[in-house]
């Protein structure tokens, strides 16, 4: 007697990716859904590659929206961009310390900060932990952003604000998640690999990583 092997699968999705973004998205199957909630409570950071374009401004901050204004961008250089990025990183770091609810005057806090383990373990607004520029070819540029509790629209807004700070304007052309907690692009399955065998292999490979991370964080 033959028939489909799995008839009904309960699947849950990890952190969402909206329609215009691409990249790593974590799905849980069956009992894995419980691990999903644990992973969410770990509050691990995600890494995005964000591509931007100087000279235009649209209403929804992406390149497919309605054009609002056009500006010049010849005056922008890489140093200016990096200066702005440093400012952003500084303000976000302050917010990070504030939301993580650790008393800054203790020795423990200092040691954790040295190791880079401070993070907000509860709800917080979007925080960028690290941001740097990967490519800069006028008018295009590419940033790598490590962040927590964000949405893709927030990232696009950041690009827009960078444009404003540089006395020009910018739109976001691409948002791509390269890492979600412990899952990277190498673990991700392509559309051509969406079959049972590959999924089973992927689950097997990632099991150990996930377990270790959850134990480390939640104790």
């Amino acid at each position, binding site marked *: 007697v033959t028939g489909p092997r799995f008839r009904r699968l309960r699947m849950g999705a990890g952190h969402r990716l909206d329609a215009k973004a*691409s990249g790593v998205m974590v799905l849980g199957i069956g009992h894995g859904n419980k691990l999903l909630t644990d992973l969410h409570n770990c509050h691990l950071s995600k890494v995005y590659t964000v591509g931007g374009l100087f000279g235009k401004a649209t209403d929804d901050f992406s390149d497919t929206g309605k054009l609002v204004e056009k500006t010049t961008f010849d005056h922008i250089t890489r140093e200016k961009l990096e200066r702005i990025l440093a400012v952003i990183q500084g303000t976000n770091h302050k917010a990070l310390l504030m939301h993580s609810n650790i008393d800054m005057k203790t020795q423990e806090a200092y040691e954790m900060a040295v190791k880079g383990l401070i993070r907000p373990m509860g709800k917080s607004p979007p925080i960028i932990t690290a941001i740097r520029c990967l490519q800069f070819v006028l008018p295009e540029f590419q940033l790598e952003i490590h962040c927590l509790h964000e949405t893709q629209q927030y990232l696009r807004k950041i690009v827009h604000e960078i444009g404003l700070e540089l006395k020009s304007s910018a739109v976001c052309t691409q948002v*791509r998640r390269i890492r979600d907690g412990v899952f990277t*692009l190498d673990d*991700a399955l*392509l*559309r*051509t690999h969406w079959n049972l065998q590959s999924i089973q292999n992927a689950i097997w490979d990632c099991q150990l990583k996930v377990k270790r991370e959850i134990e480390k964080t939640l104790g």
Partner: protein
Amino acid sequence: MAVWARQLARGWCLLARACAPEVPHRLKSHSSKTRTCHVFCPLALLHFRNRFFPWKVQTCRPLSAEHCAQPDSSKDGSLASPESHLPAQVNQKQEKAETIPDVHANVLYEDWDDIPPSSALEEISEEEAVKIIAEPLLPFQSSTLRDYVDHSETLTKLVHLGIFDLSQVEKRQKAGQLLLTLDFEKDIRKVLLFLKDVGVEDNQLGSFLTKNPYILGEDLEALETRVAYLKSKKFGKAEIAQMVSRAPYLLLFSVERLDNRLGFFKNELGLSVTKTKDLVIRLPRLLTGKLEPVKENIQVCQIELGFQRNEIQHIVFKTPKILTSSKKKLRKTFDYLHNVMGIPHSMLTRFPQVFNSKLLRIKERHLFLKFLGRAQYDPVQPSYISLHQLVSLPDEVFCTEIAKASMQDFEKFLKTL
């Protein structure tokens, strides 16, 4: 209902085998004489000779005629001819069954206070009660054919033929009812033999009938005229067989309708007769589908995509599927091919199969080739890549031959999109 009960009580008939249509259930709900309810039912059957109950009956007379021939079968469901029904089943009380209708006719108009010859209210002894078997009811109205499959010969024989997917058949409107009302021996057999004559293979019959069960209800002469019409238009026998098996609804259309449609395609596309015939043989769905979407597709090709009339003819002749594909997909694919990849109309006319393929595939492969610097679609220049190869090759061959890269590189590139 209480009136009934009294009238039935007059004609007394204690039958050994009781067939139980819905009546006893209704009586149960209305009358208090529950223990003798199942005795009422044969009386109820007799009663129906005089009164026609307009319940919607899914199984009908021909079935009951069959059942009479099989007295040992305990099937029932026919309420239309109780007298022929009952004698077959009830052996003991046969003479009584025949006399009782006459008695009953007289009894109907008598005074209600007459004492019945033998009251149905008499206690039945235990053995006789056990012998009265209450059959599970055949519902009068049902949304699935499953209830009838066991009882209906037509359905069982059709299943044997190979239509295992009765669930699809019953989804179509009224097909289920049609199947049940037809008699296998008379109507269906003739139609099946006709289909075999036309050239439908045995193993295809099953899927054919699943898609088009209405053909079993068609008149045989009408079907033959239609095939004769197709032959007169010089479609060969093998071609007709192929068309009919691929488009099961074809033979349902009347001759004028078929004529109209052939004429429509000839005029709209401006093709010669032989070419139109060829087109129709390759995609007989054109004849059975709606005409407005086809017209709109042609308009889209002409106005929005900017193809000339002869270009459209050529494209349609090569890939008739373009007439039935969705307009949104056509527009998107064309937009990407023409504006982003920069392919002129002449190239698209030569390779119309790109319109049939998935847009995502085209995008991925084109971006990969652009990344490698090999996106060259102009036949004049060196290292030219034909659209045909772009679209129809499987992934591995595409990677190694056209892109001259490995599969892993392609996958890594895809992950960066």
